[in-house]
């Protein structure tokens, strides 16, 4: 019987445990590399070390949004509650990371540019992204009916995502003073050790994203299961 299978108590989550373990190891490695392996930046000094986590969280924040976009497309074309769960989980996890991006960006900007906030393109687009995520979450909170909520959220996730590249171009033309890290340019001298540290940080944050995403998805599945069980119970009770 399908219903019984749906209502089974969730078994131990091996993949979740592996992901959590991998994130733990990678984050400790990344921390070690950031503080011990990566060289001290010449002009900015130790402050620059925040860069590794700043870039990594920005990457994950945008990646999370991309996942929501894809989940939205699949949900609209094929349907299925799991795609909706994926989209909503990815937004919530992405929101955490994008907040981290904005906060680390501000902490970095203070000693380097002398002010917490500059309308610098990448920082600005992160802020715009943050507001879109918040709007998405608010939207989900104010719709009646699970199916309709899923449909609207999928559409908003798609439309929002396609405006992001245009926002990026518009903001970039509007303001440009960010240190152009990977292409050299002015700003920072980059050594291979820095690049290696950055790559490990990005891997660590991506693994952390995966871990959190998986737990969030499980939470939502548990909620669904709870709702189903309660309905069954109510039906049984009313039969007496």
């Amino acid at each position: 019987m399908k219903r019984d299978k749906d209502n089974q108590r969730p078994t131990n989550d091996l993949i979740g445990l592996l992901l959590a373990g991998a994130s733990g190891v990678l984050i400790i490695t990344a921390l070690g590399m950031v503080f011990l392996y990566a060289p001290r930046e010449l002009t900015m000094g130790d402050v620059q070390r925040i860069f590794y986590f700043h870039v990594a969280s920005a990457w994950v924040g945008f990646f999370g949004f991309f996942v929501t976009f894809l989940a939205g497309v699949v949900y609209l074309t094929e349907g299925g509650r799991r795609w909706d769960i994926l989209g909503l989980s990815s937004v919530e996890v992405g929101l955490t990371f994008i907040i981290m991006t904005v906060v680390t960006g501000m902490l970095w900007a203070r000693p380097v540019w002398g002010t917490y906030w500059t309308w610098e393109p990448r920082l600005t687009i992160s802020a715009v992204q943050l507001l879109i995520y918040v709007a998405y979450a608010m939207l989900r909170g104010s719709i009646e009916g699970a199916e309709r909520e899923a449909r609207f959220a999928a559409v908003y996730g798609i439309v929002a995502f396609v405006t992001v590249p245009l926002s990026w171009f518009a903001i970039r033309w509007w303001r440009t003073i960010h240190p152009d890290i990977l292409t050299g340019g002015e700003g920072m001298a980059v050594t291979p050790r820095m690049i290696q540290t950055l790559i490990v940080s990005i891997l660590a944050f991506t693994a952390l994203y995966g871990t959190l995403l998986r737990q969030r998805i499980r939470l939502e599945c548990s909620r669904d299961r709870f709702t189903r069980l309660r309905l069954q119970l109510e039906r049984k009770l009313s039969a007496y």
Partner: protein
Amino acid sequence: MDYVRKVAAIIEKDIAAELHTREMISAMLVFSALATLIFSFALDLRGELAEAAAPGVLWSTIAFAGTLGLSRSMAREKETGCIDGLLLAPVDRTAIFFGKAVGNLLFMSVVEVALLPLFSVLFDVGLMRARILVVLVLGTVGYAAVGTLLAAIAVNTRAREVMLPVLLLPLAVPVLIAAVRATGALLEGAALSQAAGWIRILVVYDLVIVAVSLLTFGYVVEE
């Protein structure tokens, strides 16, 4: 041809309803005048400052007045049950989108047509140029298109009028930046080609948003 006729019928219906009640355009017009007043108090808009701030003030006013009209236009569909009738009619969903979007575009344009001379007189800036009209049209098309789609979503939420600006404004960032910059450049006497970068962003935004809206509008209105 049949398709165009259906779109036209929806636009006609919106215009007829608006001529009858006059609630949307009058609200938008009064709001725009008030917003202009408040901006000029807040920023003390005179002389060079007025020239520098005019594009931003103009587009902020358009954006906020736009959210009023957009949410009203969809709320009216919902309240009168008209949208249900449209969905029952043998009309393609995209035709409904086009009809509503063009209607909203028209209403916003009426407000803009009134705003331009007002700005020119109050702030002594030369906004009445054909080149600026191009930017105005391109910016409003994108804004009205994405606004129509999101208004159809917002009207089905609990918070309704509150929800639309929250959903719409972060997605309208590219339009607002590009339109303000292009208007500013043209106001300083630049040729159309000097604002080409910004205009290109507006055109791409319009195309992308209309395409995505056409693809997704059906999912928003179906029940």
